[in-house]
């Protein structure tokens, strides 16, 4: 146990040293002028300018817009993916026919469909959310199918022996038994929602973090552009850390 704890601590330390070392290296290269400020600004400048932007509220509207779109896309894809997963799992013949499509789904560059979404849904948040959902929903379907497949046979039989109705079995056995797998799907769906929303805003929107980064780039506002990038990086890292923490709790219960 102690050896294991020591190894984990050592791994964490090495990881921190690599990240901090990389940031310090970039900082030194920028400050010494080896990397011109027109190409990249120093991480410390990104950070201080980012704090100023947040205090001044210059991009508040864009940040709120993106966050609402990300949350909406995450919720829709998680719920839709779960329901579709349940339906597909209940119909084995349907599953056999569409499983090859699901497994090759991520070979499709989803963003090529953006003109269709604009034509159908107009300009605004809706086509952005739609693209993000399209990108993230399949990972949730796959996670749901995987979770339902892995419910041990003995748990199904126990539910039968306790004479649970299908509804109670779903709520009290299937849902908690699949939860660790579903949560893996939730984690990925949120990550894809981030990618889908921010990337769509570059091409489909007049607001949002993606749009703001694109606008700053086109107008040579390097400090705004890099500060927003840093903001996105910090945000996804924090969200991922929280989700990972919850995931670890689920996984530790799952181990038999």
């Amino acid at each position: 146990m102690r050896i294991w704890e020591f190894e984990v601590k050592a791994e964490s330390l090495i990881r921190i040293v690599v990240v901090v070392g990389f940031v310090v290296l970039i900082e030194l290269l920028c400050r010494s002028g080896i990397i011109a400020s027109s190409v990249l600004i120093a991480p410390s400048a990104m950070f201080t300018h980012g704090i100023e932007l947040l205090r001044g509220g210059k991009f508040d509207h864009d940040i709120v817009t993106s966050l609402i779109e990300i949350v909406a896309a995450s919720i829709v894809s998680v719920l839709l993916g779960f329901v579709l997963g349940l339906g597909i799992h209940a119909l084995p013949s349907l599953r056999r026919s569409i499983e090859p499509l699901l497994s090759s789904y991520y070979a499709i560059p989803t963003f090529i469909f953006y003109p269709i979404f604009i034509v159908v849904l107009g300009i605004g948040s809706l086509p952005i959310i739609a693209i993000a959902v399209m990108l993230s929903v399949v990972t949730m379907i796959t996670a749901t199918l995987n979770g339902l497949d892995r419910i041990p046979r003995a748990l199904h039989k126990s539910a039968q022996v306790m004479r649970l109705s299908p509804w109670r079995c779903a709520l009290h056995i299937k849902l908690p038994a699949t939860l660790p797998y579903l949560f893996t799907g939730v984690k990925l769906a949120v990550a894809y929602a981030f990618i889908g929303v921010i990337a769509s805003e570059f091409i489909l929107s007049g607001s949002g973090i993606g749009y703001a980064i694109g606008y700053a780039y086109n107008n040579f506002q390097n400090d705004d552009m890099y500060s927003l990038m840093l903001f996105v990086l910090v945000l996804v890292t924090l969200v991922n850390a929280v989700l990972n923490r919850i995931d670890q709790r689920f996984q530790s219960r799952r181990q038999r």
Partner: protein
Amino acid sequence: MKARNAHPTLQVVESPAQQAPASPEAHVELTGVTRYFTRSDSKELFHALGPIDLTLTKGEFFSVVGPSGCGKSTLLDALAGLSRPSSGTVMFEGQPVTGVPDGVGVVFQEDASFPWLNLRDNISFGLRMAGVDGAEIQRRVDYAMGFMGLNDFAKAYPSQLSGGMRQRVCIARTLVLQPRLILLDEPFGALDQQTRLLMGDELLRLWRETSATVLLITHALDEAAMLSDRVGVMSARPGLFIDIVETGWERSRDSRVVSTPRFGEINARLWEKLRVESLKVMGVH
């Protein structure tokens, strides 16, 4: 308590095992039960079990031994109402079994504990689902936890327990429901020999206290010989009872019977029949 040999000689029902017509104390009765399955690859029909005729009297401890794949678990599924036989009837307390009847508890070989619930919630789960009131749940769970020696682990999760402890949780979960018929499908299959002997003692204690009828499916001849009033030996597929051995143990028996000469006699008798069937399964005639 010292186990005594109640009968000087083995009472063996010669094959094919025939059962007397249902007596008033017949608790479980199988008549002409068969099970056929369709192979998923070739759509071919294969005969897995039967015809089986068997009567279990109320409060009896009956074990089933047989070679791998002979249909022991299929028999248990039919008894529990988890699957319907292809032909024949299964009666429990005078009623035909069409689904899982009230009063039947099953312990499986696989770990069936719920990993998301702590030990206490695992044991009380069935009672909560059945709508039993809180005070009664607490009383029964406290009793079962004490009985199975689980009091120190109430807040532990299954992932923190050993295989033997998890199986105790599953037995306690069945025990609190106060079943009148307990079906056990190789419940100690994954445990080491010493733990199995001790779990066998606990099972006997449980059987004595509850007065339930018990049917145990097992691979282990010694387990069957030690625990049972009667042991049914099944043939290779399609599973039929080729021999039913009455052990003659007293109800107050425990694992110490393994040191008696009679235990050796029963074991030898069971192995004599089972050896031939196991060789058939291995393709040696």
